[in-house]
């Protein structure tokens, strides 16, 4: 019997000939990523009693969660982090460079066949490029700094095959929301999820990143899209380092193989307070909204901003609605500025922020008051996620966000054409 992607990567990175699902292996990752939580990781690392990170070249730190610092406390965290990365010689991107997952991909740090562990739950994003990437906790990142290795359980694997051409204004975001709704918030718990089929093969890297990013919301340990010409063309501009793609065997043993036809899919919306509470947009159309957030590691790329601008088509943001736009990185920000998109958003009445996580995690830059309703392109709508536990948060695609911004209520973007 053949091996899945997860089994092959984890065997290689643990220095074993082969591994079985359920086996616990000690693996050596190619990259460890952390962000603003690095300040807390430094404190844990000091408690171990070590002075030096063992292999500083294998780590990257990106400040993105609360940037620029929103309080003295956050500022102190950032200051401590800057001192630490300088002292240890760790690769570092300061406030303003962008959201960690976008930056890792833009900088060519996520490559096919790599094992990447990140102190962030959306680390599975790099599976879009054929890497095995999973989220870990703070103590575990401190342990990685100390030893360069970590125990991992070999997961069983799901293969999700998608076919059908997506209808106009229906996006990868709608597909992944639909799948999360079908499988449930724990539908892929602990599993490695391989996305395949003509629909996925036809997607660019940004759309594949949306799929892999939100696989975390069905409980997946990691996600995977087989590297192909699209992947290699993207990486050609991003990295000069050699890499070795790893592919699942054709006869790999999957726990389950699922097939979905997404050719007739309607735009999807996740309703509060759970990401798997997904409905076709027609079921919630008309719901009045106070705030729209366009951005984050899920949907803050140039393709997302272009799509939103196309749907808004010069219409102003509706009275009483606050529209917040956060490009996911400096690169996206500059490209959007060059294409005139940022000016279009501001002229329509939107607020354009610096690259960062912004209001997604409820720390600053667009917190919701009790009773307020928001539609965001982000990946979580839990109670209290964007501020007040009494606020309501809906999730949708950039096209949906744009339609909501100009109408003030949940609206199918196709109805504006």
């Amino acid at each position: 019997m053949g091996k899945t992607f997860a089994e092959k990567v984890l065997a290689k990175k643990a220095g074993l000939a082969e591994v079985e699902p359920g086996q616990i292996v000690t693996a050596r990752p190619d990259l460890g990523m952390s962000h603003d939580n690095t300040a807390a990781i430094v404190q844990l690392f000091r408690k171990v009693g070590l002075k030096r990170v063992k292999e500083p070249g294998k780590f990257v730190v990106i400040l993105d969660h609360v940037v620029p610092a929103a309080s003295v406390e956050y500022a102190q965290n950032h200051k401590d982090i800057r001192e630490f990365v300088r002292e240890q010689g760790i690769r570092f991107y300061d406030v303003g460079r962008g959201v960690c997952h976008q930056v890792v991909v833009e900088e060519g740090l996520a490559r096919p066949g790599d094992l990447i562990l990140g102190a962030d739950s959306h680390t599975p994003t790099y599976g879009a490029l054929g890497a095995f990437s999973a989220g870990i906790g703070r103590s575990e990142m401190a342990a990685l700094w100390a030893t360069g290795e970590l125990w991992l359980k070999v997961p069983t694997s799901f293969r999700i095959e998608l076919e059908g051409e997506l209808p106009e204004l229906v996006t990868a975001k709608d597909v992944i929301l639909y799948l999360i709704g079908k499988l449930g918030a724990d539908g892929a718990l602990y599993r490695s999820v391989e996305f395949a089929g003509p629909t996925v093969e036809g997607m660019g890297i940004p759309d594949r990143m949306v799929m892999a990013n939100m696989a975390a919301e069905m409980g997946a340990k990691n996600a995977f899209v087989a590297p192909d010409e699209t992947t290699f063309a993207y990486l050609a501009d991003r990295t000069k380092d050699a890499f070795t793609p790893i592919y699942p065997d054709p006869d790999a043993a999957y726990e389950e193989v699922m097939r979905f036809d997404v050719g007739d899919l309607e735009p999807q919306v996740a309703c509060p307070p759970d990401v798997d509470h997904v409905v076709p947009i027609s079921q919630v159309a008309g719901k009045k909204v106070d705030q729209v957030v366009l951005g984050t590691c899920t949907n803050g790329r140039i393709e997302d901003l272009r799509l939103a601008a196309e749907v808004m088509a010069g219409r102003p943001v509706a009275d009483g609605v606050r529209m917040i736009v956060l490009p996911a990185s400096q690169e996206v920000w500059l490209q959007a500025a060059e294409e005139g998109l940022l000016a279009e958003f501001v002229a329509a009445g939107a607020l354009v922020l610096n690259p960062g996580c912004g209001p997604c995690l409820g720390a600053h830059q667009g917190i919701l008051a009790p009773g307020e309703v928001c539609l965001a392109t982000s990946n979580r709508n839990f109670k209290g996620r964007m501020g007040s536990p009494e606020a309501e948060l809906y999730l949708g695609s950039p096209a949906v966000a744009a339609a909501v911004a100009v109408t003030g209520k949940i609206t199918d973007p196709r109805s504006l054409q």
Partner: protein
Amino acid sequence: MIQGRAWKYGDNVNTDVIFPGRYTYARMEPGEMAKHALEDLDPRFAREVKPGDVIVAGRNFGCGSSREQAATCLAAAGVGAVVAKSFARIFFRNAINSGLLALEIPEAVDVIQSGDKVGIDVERGVLVHGGKEYRFPPLPAAVQEILAAGGLIPYLKAKLVKEA
């Protein structure tokens, strides 16, 4: 032997309601974190929880953010164990690494109600409730060693000292 009262919750209890994002990047010692434990789910919890109490929950406990404080705050609040039908994978790792016992015992979750007395004997691998015993498989050796040390950081510290 862990003994305490049960605090029962449902499925998909996420890390945003266990430890809200607004505190995630604040500098806090575990004792301070404990004051915010389950703040957005059950404001009574942090005020009334007693050492040894057991959280009992449904599927996918701890889903969402990777924030370790979701586990640390419960350990610091004196929670003896979290017993759930299943755990989100990062929370499970964070629990072990924080020295917090996390057990999957679905059949016990079905019968335990809030306020019930619960006992857990880790060595024998049983949970005791209402005169009945519910068995759970022994934890992997690597996990037991980390729990015994009180978490990953103390475990690592002891290991490095031993190796040096």
